Each structure stands twice: as C-alpha cells, then as structure tokens.
C-alpha cells in the first residue's frame, strides 16, 4: 500500500488517537467498513459489468457512498450496543469512516478477482490500524502518562507510565499533538520509501 494512500486514509482517523482504546475502536470500524464495502462494490461491479449498462461517474459515486454509509451506520449501531461509552467518545468521527474508506478505495486500481480486492482492502485496513496504534500509544503514553485498554479481570484497563502521569506532556494529547505525530510518522514512511526506491535503482545507475 503506497505511503500517500496510507496517510490519506489516516488523516481523518488520526483524531481518535488520543487514547489507545479509541484508536482500536476506530481501526475496527475502518477494517470492517472498508472490507465489506469493497466486497459489495466489487460484487455489484462484476454483476453489472456483464450487462452492457455499467454505471459510471456520479451514479457510481452515489452508489459507493450509499453502500459505505449504510455499512458505517451498521457499525455505529453495533458499537452503541457493545460499548455506549466508546460510541459516545467516537463522536463525529465514526460517521466519517464512510467517506474515508471511500476516498481510499477510489484511488485503488481495480483488482482482478474478488479475493484480491478483498485481501487488498483487509491489508489497507490493517496498515491503517497499525499506524493508528503506534501514534495512539506514543501520544497517550507521553501526553497523558497512561495506556488505556480493556478492563479484563484484575487488570483495571489502564497502564500507568511511570512519572509521566504526574506531569504529562499535555500538548501531545491536544489536536496539535496528533498532527505532529502523524507528520513524523509520515516522514519515517517517506524515508523508508525513498531508501527502498534508491536501493532498487542502485542496480541500473550507480550514484
């Protein structure tokens, strides 16, 4: 998955990296919706492709929006049922998944088989959640001095990160912190990509 694409999909989701648990919920939403919507669109495409009237342009966009938004709504309902607090804290950002996954999908070349496109979607979702998780851990650990997970048995759900909890770097927990972390994450990804590219081009032209 290309760096630019990953970043593009991260941008709206990055707001939910103030705590680790939020990032996990967001990741779940992105994975689910992108996977299912991709499958649905793919199926529809293939069926309509057989008939001569393949929808295009605005119609196509409308259909995609419809699919992803309905799926998102379903996810929201599910989240509300599972954990009302989580759905409350997701606020306006869970509905945004609808347009978000669509933006990603639109920039993907059409895959040859259904399995391919599905696995592609899954891969994208996983990449996004991994990045979200990294940013979230970094931000919450430094910005709040905690790492919030599920309460499970004796474990009360939050890990305290040493002395930071007393004087956390609050600025990293703020919106700016999210942009900052995403920025340096993007830098790292870009550096890796360029290194790969230069390593690849090493063969033909020595520099």
């Amino acid at each position, binding site marked *: 998955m290309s760096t*630019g694409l990953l*970043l*593009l999909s991260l*941008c*709206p989701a*990055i*707001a939910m990296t103030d705590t680790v648990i939020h990032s996990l919920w967001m990741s779940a939403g992105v994975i689910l919706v992108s996977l299912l919507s991709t499958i649905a669109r793919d199926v529809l495409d293939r069926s309509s492709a057989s008939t001569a009237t393949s929808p295009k342009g*605005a119609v196509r*966009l*409308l259909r995609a*929006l*419809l699919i*992803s*938004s*309905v799926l*998102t*709504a379903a996810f*929201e*309902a599910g989240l509300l049922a599972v954990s009302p607090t989580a759905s409350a804290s997701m*606020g*306006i950002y869970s*509905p*945004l998944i*609808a*347009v*978000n996954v*669509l*933006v990603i999908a*639109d920039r993907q070349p059409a895959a040859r088989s259904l399995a391919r496109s599905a696995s592609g979607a899954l891969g994208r979702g996983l990449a996004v959640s991994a990045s979200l998780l990294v940013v979230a851990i970094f931000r919450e650990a430094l910005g709040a001095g905690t790492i919030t997970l599920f309460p499970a048995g004796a474990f009360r759900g939050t890990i305290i990160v040493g002395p930071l909890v007393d004087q956390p770097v609050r*600025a990293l927990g*703020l*919106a*700016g*912190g*999210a*942009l*900052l972390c*995403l*920025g*340096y994450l*993007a*830098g*790292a990804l*870009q*550096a890796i990509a*360029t290194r790969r590219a230069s390593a690849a081009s090493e063969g033909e032209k020595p520099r």
Partner: protein
Amino acid sequence: MSWEATLLTFALIDNVILSRLLGVDPYGMPGSLRSAAAAGGLFTILMAASAVAGSVLETQVLAPFGLEALRTPAFVLLVAAFAAALHGLAARRAPAMLEEAGVSLGRTATSTAVLGVVLIASRGGLDAGRALLAGLGAGAGFFLVTSMMTAIRLRLEVEPVPRALRGFPLQLVTAALMAYAFLAFDRGFLARFLGR
C-alpha cells in the same frame, strides 16, 4: 450560544483543520493562493448550505421519526447531493473559479471537512440560523488556515528542507505548529471576550 460566539467558535476555537483535524490531506494541497481562495470559497458555500440542510433534516425528520440510526447515510448523501449541485452551478456560472479551485466532485462530495461540520452542527442541536453561521464560520476558518498553510508551503518549496520530511510530512508539522498557536484562542478567551 450567541451568534458571534457561534461564528468565532467554528472559525477559530474549533477550527475544522487545526482542532477537528478534518481536511488535511496529501492530495488536497492548493498549489497557489488563488486556488486556495477559490477552494475556500467553494467549501464555505458547501459547508453553510449543507449545515443548514443538515440541521433542518435533523430537527424536522430524523429526530421526530426516531430515525437517528439513519443519520450517517442521510448526511453523507445530503453532502454529496449539495456538492453535485454546487459543482453543476459553478461549472455553469463560474467555470474559472472551479478550474482554479481544482477540486473534483469526488473530493468535495467525500470531503470529511464538510461532513464533519454538518455532523457537529446537528449534534450540537443548532437551529437553522445558527447552523448557517456555523457553516460560514467553519468555512472562514478553513479558508484562513489553508491560505496560511499554502503560503508557508510556497515558502518552503524553494528551501533545502530535510529530504525525509519534504512535502506532506512538513505540511503536517506546519499544521501542528499552527494548531498550537491557535490554541491561544480557547473557550476561556471567548467567554471573557464576549462576556462583558
């Protein structure tokens, strides 16, 4: 909320880009001040229109008939519809502006910034008038911040910045620094400023 409070909140304090983290995307960077202005205008109109429609939809349809579950699809389609309408209008009335803005229907229709404003306005339970102000304020804030970020980017273009950070990463760091700067305008400031 008083009308000026609404306007200032959506423009400065809860800025779409800097505080809500909507609308920074690696493909959507305007290439010049003119195109930033054009895109800003386009988005402002779109935000205002769909925010109003959104609040009406919320208060007249969704809430009374208990259709909150359908909120997301409704708003998504609403924004898309308005985007399509606006594009059609602009293509006929102001093709130059549309050209300058350089945003495709796909991008406006799926713009997280616009949808975000609609959602915030409706969840905040703003009436139509306030929603209009909210949309205008958000648009103004979007316009201000994109212009500043564009100017900074044009300045960085000619500088030998670190290779790893060139381009979008620095755009994000820039946005982060601006976000910290704009935090000087917080709710306390608004309260004291409009309070007396």
